[in-house]
């Protein structure tokens, strides 16, 4: 995209002089703290003439130019001072993008045609800026293909012809790319100019320097495709409410939450949007921030969102009620138990409530099925499940989502009702189906123990069956015992295995090595097919084919 880059060099100095006109002609040094060091951020011509350099230590600059007037850098004030310039340039183009105080960019497509060419545009821009800053103000304008090239062109006040970017860039040092690590490496490789870097093959750069390197390679080739962030900024859809006085009772919090929820849904509806996922955030008086995402696939309606907010606040404040009475160990244990149960434990009253619409969609055209069908059933089910959630707690009601994994327990994720139904390990990544070598084959067992029940798998001699390092069994299983089987277990009638499994072998803390048998045991109540895992010396019953 052909871009015009406007730069007012030493803007911090210009801004300081615009604030205090008596500083005209005096040496000025602006310094800023960078980490532990105090460095010169900008210096006026007079100071530079005395030997001050940008980037040198402030103490050293004082030694060079003792009479300089010093200021701390104030980017906010600089940005405010640049505002009149930006506003004046809005007569040239409507689509400005400020980069730093003192520099901005805009696409030339329309303005250039209007002014009759790039050179005329550059003249018009320069005249406009000088109209604000005074006839003598330094301003440089660069026009080129792509923003990176335009920025470099602005240093020399150049208009680079279309298609001439690569040629223009070639002699510049690679340091202009700005990325210290990449630049250092390129210099050590002997690639000191952008031209030399640009000459490398694209795929080799991608391989060696990654996506970021490839992007900068495109810059060096004069092939900067990055779009400018233009257009209307997205509207701020977040709604916030300060709770003053802080709220500890669920009812009061829910009342505030309802008002907030209605406001959010109303504002979104005014824009023709519905929210399918919302983050409920709260802050406590101790500065803790709590947040939880709630989803609804058709978009929240006002009552529904208010209800969700109420449950969430209820959860937070209820968990806290356990902690508050006294700080002793028991209360702490209870709080831990709550935390384990998925509730967040909090301390203190809520001071701030915020609803962040995380995902919005155009309001779905709601159409009921022809014979009053599925949508009505879904609404009924939603009400029933929400009510049960109110009775038993948020985490005890949900639906199951199939996900990637090897064992029956791993392949299912329980998602609490109202949360987005997303697997932890997706079944397909892009267009590719994820494969899970060593997964237990179909049919799947209808009863799963999570965690697995301790069991014993014995050979004909009554010794536990073990699995060696190469996945071979010490003996053939003859008897399985477990309290989940009728009569405590029985002889093994048929079996297949061991299927060795060595998962997460790259992670010492999460590594699990074991072997699995699918077997049919004869118990007092008849045959039972089950899945038995042997890990080390311990056998366990993972599932029953009920």
């Amino acid at each position, binding site marked *: 995209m052909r871009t015009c880059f406007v730069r007012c060099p030493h803007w911090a100095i210009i801004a300081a002089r615009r604030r205090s006109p008596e500083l005209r002609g005096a040496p000025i040094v602006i310094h800023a703290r960078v980490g532990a060091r105090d460095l010169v951020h900008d210096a006026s011509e007079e100071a530079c003439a005395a030997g001050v350099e940008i980037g040198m230590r402030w103490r050293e600059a004082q030694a060079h130019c003792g009479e300089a007037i010093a200021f701390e850098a104030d980017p906010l004030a600089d940005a405010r001072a640049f505002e009149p310039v930006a506003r004046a340039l809005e007569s040239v183009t409507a689509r400005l993008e400020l980069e730093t105080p003192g520099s901005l960019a805009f696409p030339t497509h329309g303005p250039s045609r209007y002014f009759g060419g790039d050179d005329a545009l550059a003249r018009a821009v320069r005249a406009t800026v000088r109209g604000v800053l005074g006839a003598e103000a330094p301003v440089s304008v660069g026009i080129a293909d792509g923003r990176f090239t335009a920025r470099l062109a602005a240093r020399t006040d150049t208009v680079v012809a279309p298609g001439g970017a690569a040629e223009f860039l070639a002699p510049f040092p690679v340091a202009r790319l700005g990325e210290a690590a990449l630049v250092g490496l390129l210099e050590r490789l002997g690639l000191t100019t952008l031209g030399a870097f640009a000459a490398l093959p694209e795929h080799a750069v991608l391989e060696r320097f990654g996506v970021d390197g490839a992007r900068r390679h495109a810059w060096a080739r004069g092939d900067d495709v990055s779009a400018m962030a233009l257009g209307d900024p997205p509207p701020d859809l977040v709604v916030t409410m300060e709770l003053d006085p802080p709220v500890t009772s669920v009812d009061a919090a829910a009342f505030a939450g309802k008002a907030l929820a209605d406001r959010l849904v109303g504002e979104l509806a005014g824009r023709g949007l519905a929210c399918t996922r919302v983050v409920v955030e709260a802050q406590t008086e101790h500065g803790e921030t709590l947040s939880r995402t709630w989803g609804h696939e058709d978009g929240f309606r006002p009552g529904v969102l208010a209800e969700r907010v109420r449950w969430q606040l209820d959860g937070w404040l209820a968990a806290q009620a356990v902690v508050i009475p006294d700080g002793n160990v028991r209360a702490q244990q209870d709080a831990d138990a709550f935390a384990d149960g998925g509730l967040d434990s909090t301390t203190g009253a809520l001071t701030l409530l915020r609803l962040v619409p995380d995902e919005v969609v155009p309001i779905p055209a709601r159409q009921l*099925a022809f*014979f*009053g*069908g*599925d949508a009505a*059933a*879904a609404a*009924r*089910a*939603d*009400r*029933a*499940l929400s*009510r*049960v959630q109110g*009775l*038993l707690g948020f985490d*005890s*009601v*949900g*639906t*199951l*989502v*199939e996900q990637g994994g090897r064992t*029956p327990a791993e*392949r*299912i994720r*329980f998602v609490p*009702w109202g949360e987005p139904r997303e697997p932890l390990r997706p079944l397909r990544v892009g267009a590719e189906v994820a494969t899970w070598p060593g997964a237990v*084959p*179909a*049919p*799947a067992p*209808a*009863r*799963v*123990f*999570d965690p697995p*029940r301790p069991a014993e798998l014995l050979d004909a001699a009554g010794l536990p069956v073990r699995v060696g390092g190469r996945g071979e069994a010490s003996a*053939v299983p003859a008897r399985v015992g477990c*309290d*989940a*089987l*009728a009569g405590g277990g029985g002889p093994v009638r*048929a*079996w*297949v295995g061991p299927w060795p499994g060595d998962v997460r072998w790259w992670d010492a803390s999460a590594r699990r090595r074991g072997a699995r048998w*699918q*077997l*049919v045991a004869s*118990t007092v*109540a*008849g*045959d*039972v*097919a089950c899945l038995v895992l042997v890990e080390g010396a311990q056998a366990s019953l993972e*599932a*029953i*084919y*009920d």
Partner: protein
Amino acid sequence: MALAAADRARLIQLAQVAQVDRRAAPVSLARDRVLAVPGRFGDLLGGAIPRGSVVTVTGPAGAGATSAAVALAAAATAAGEWAAFVEPEGRNGASSLLGGIAAIESGVEPARCAVVRAVSRERWATVVGALLDGMLVVVAAIPPRLALGDARRLQARARERQAVIVALESVPRALTGAWPADATRRIVIDGVEWRGLEPGAGLLAERVVHAHVAGKGAPPRDARIVA
């Protein structure tokens, strides 16, 4: 399980068509207010069960009671309606969970199948009652010593809502009891034979379930279901 995927899909489609047909009918007769149950367990029940009824399922651990209940839940989700599983409290805290993959393999649509975990005895009747308001099929593991009054109230609610209670009377390693009131169908599973797995070879492939059904308005039947 032995049902080929194509077979299953076809049966589900037929059930859906039948359901729409029934909804579209101007007058619904009592004999039309049924839940069509596809598959082999459906054949055992004569292809359908009346809505607003109670079906009990019992059998020793591993015989296939869960699979029978899952087949009924699958019938509801295939018809575009909802199903829910009420899981029991475990003995000493550890119970067995419904195998979700098995449910999906038997045709349950997981997005329309809710699971309520570890419901305590005290809350059980309230929870099942609330679920009957929104679900077509509620598969509930019956807690021990369920009060007859509670059972009758739930039965009345199911009749009013035209929902089906599947009373699961046995769940491995869970505290369960018997359904104390009367039931429209009682499915008793006596045993199972597994095929395909030999000593040291093969894989579990299919099973033959020995089931017995008794109930009102239908003669008692013994059946061997290949599932």
